[in-house]
């Protein structure tokens, strides 16, 4: 570093500090007022600073819990599946609106088949 650089730094710093000391009274008064306003402002305590992230975490955790419930069937399950399960459980005749029409066309064949299944020995004779 040259002497010129050192002189430049020293002079720049002196001028800056002198300019800061020689601020006009009006500006100095405004700075004092700004300082008083700042000091009168409520301080944010460390506990309060932690409340925002803690609250955000609680909201996210609650939302996650509501969306993810293991072992519970979603209420919007497909109706066809529910109906099929009900049909198997109750042994009622199939709903004509949701059953294959071919089943009704061959109804006599299925009846015969069911009869043979219940009486295997008679069918073999």
């Amino acid at each position: 570093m040259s002497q010129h650089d050192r002189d430049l730094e020293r002079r720049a710093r002196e001028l800056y500090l002198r300019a800061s000391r020689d601020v006009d009274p009006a500006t100095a008064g405004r700075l004092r007022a700004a300082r008083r306003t700042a000091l009168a402002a409520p301080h944010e305590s460390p506990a309060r600073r932690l409340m925002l992230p803690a609250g955000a975490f609680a909201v996210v955790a609650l939302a996650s819990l509501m969306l993810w419930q293991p072992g519970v069937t979603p209420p919007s399950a497909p109706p066809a599946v529910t109906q099929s399960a009900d049909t198997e459980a109750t042994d009622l005749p199939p709903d004509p609106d949701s059953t294959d029409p071919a089943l009704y066309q061959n109804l006599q064949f299925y009846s015969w088949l069911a009869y043979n299944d219940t009486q295997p020995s008679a069918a073999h004779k």
Partner: protein
Amino acid sequence: MEHEDANTDEAKSAVNGSLALDSASLDDVREVPANMDAFLAAIERRAWRMAEIHLGNREDGMDAVQDAMLRLVRHYADKPPGEWTPLFWGILRRRIVDLQRRRKVRSIIVGWIGGGRDDDGDELPAWEPADDSPDPSARLQDSQAYGDIVVAVRKLPQRQREAFTLRIMEGLDVAETAAVMGCSDGSVKTHLSRAMHSLRDQLEAWR
């Protein structure tokens, strides 16, 4: 990506040389304050000068300092007094950058709504807030010299300007300057080296 390794030797030389600053005035600036009131009272005028250098406008500088003081008291009053100095300058630096960005956006909007060209179709200068106060140099005994350094510093790129004003004018050490600027020590040295190179050319008359 900043070229932190560039000119390393020159940068180190510049930084080491800057330690030759006037130690008496440095002590005045770096006293650990007794309380927040004393801290702000000691720093408020320099902060305003610093903001004025960066923003080129007294009122914007006042706004920046007011906001920085408010934020320091509100959020960091419970920190140890020894940490207030870098915290305050960091807050003020971010506030200055915010104001510069807002000013740029206002210039763009003024350009969009037709304020960017006059009746002859010539481009008007970018919008700047009115500053009807006298030039800072008019109030100073060394007005011409201070005006010269302010003009030269304002011509520097932003990061070089920050490094020079914080490290040389305000007298923060390299680590503090790096913390305030949000970069590495090496980056500060590089920015400072380039700033000194540019100022040497601009202030040739000071030789």
